[in-house]
């Protein structure tokens, strides 16, 4: 669910502090610029908009993180991997899409699964379908970010417009780079 790697706690906390300081600086810079451009009234209007956005988002974010945490506990990445390895033909692409969408954890787990697919000879078609589905249709990303921030309708538009695109990307890779499928990973 998270976009973060799993470095040592010390490195992680240092990185988080730097990141938060950067966000803080962004707020101060935009706030100062807003005040100088729009005056106290514009600054106050901006604060009202922010307060409105935050009160709307907080309950949704809280619930979405709860859902994502439960999914993280319930879903089993090893079982999901085994499911795709046992399929053939286009069904494999459907499974790769579904597996990509439901893979729990952040990029560390999804890219490890991708590495396993490529090294076990599943090929670029499945690999590209899987990782594209994970990045575009990841259920945890949709639940934590898409629905709470963009709303169900906008999230629905994105899902309907793109659920078929990971398999399309995989097939396109097979068509254009057919030879690359049998190539080694690196």
């Amino acid at each position, binding site marked *: 669910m998270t*976009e973060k790697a799993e470095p040592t706690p010390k490195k992680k906390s240092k990185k988080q502090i730097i990141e938060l300081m950067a966000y803080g600086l962004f707020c101060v810079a935009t706030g100062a610029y807003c005040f100088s451009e729009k005056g106290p009234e514009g600054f106050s209007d901006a604060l009202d*908009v922010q307060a409105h956005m935050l009160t709307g988002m907080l309950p*949704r974010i809280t619930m979405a993180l709860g859902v994502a945490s*439960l999914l993280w506990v319930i879903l089993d990445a090893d079982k999901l991997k085994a499911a795709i390895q046992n399929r053939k033909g286009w069904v494999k692409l459907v499974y790769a899409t579904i597996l990509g969408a439901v893979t729990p954890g952040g990029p560390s787990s999804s890219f490890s699964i*991708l590495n396993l697919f490529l090294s076990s000879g599943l090929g670029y078609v499945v690999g590209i379908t899987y990782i594209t589905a994970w*990045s575009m249709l990841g259920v945890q990303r949709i639940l934590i*970010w898409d629905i709470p921030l963009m*709303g169900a309708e906008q999230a629905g538009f994105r899902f309907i417009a793109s659920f078929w695109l990971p398999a399309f990307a995989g097939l396109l890779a097979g068509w254009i780079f057919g030879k690359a499928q049998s190539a080694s990973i690196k």
Partner: protein
Amino acid sequence: MISPSLLILLALLFVLGYKAGKRGDGSLNRAYARFKKQMIQFLPRMVLVVIGTGFLLQIIPSALISEYLGADAGITPIFIGGIAGMLVPAGPAIAFTTAATLAGSGAAPAALVAFITAWCIFAIHRILIYEIHLAGSKFLLVRCTVALPIPFIAGYVTHLIS
């Protein structure tokens, strides 16, 4: 009033909570521990990003956003959204909050879909940290080539259905 998205999340929370509780193996406790960790990680970022982009919104004239990213601008917003999404070198907090603030200023759904999809596929931090090392540069090249039209296709399909 409870929004549909809140209802979906609430329903999922109950169903998954029930499933985890039924296991009886401490799944609920592990989920709660993860939830607390994630809240501590995400909440400060979320608040700061909302504050920063809220000020930005006040500065950028909404007429400008409507002109270049609004529904009346045809398919141009899809290209602008897609290219802008590829250039966002940050995590989901910034990408999605930026999209949400643009949505509040009148950006078209198609532009937002192109923006988010492009960010999802081409997030540079993910490519540099994970993809090059775990999948190799050849795979990266193939993936980026075939994925290049995807944000624009997704945006265009949204343009047709929205």
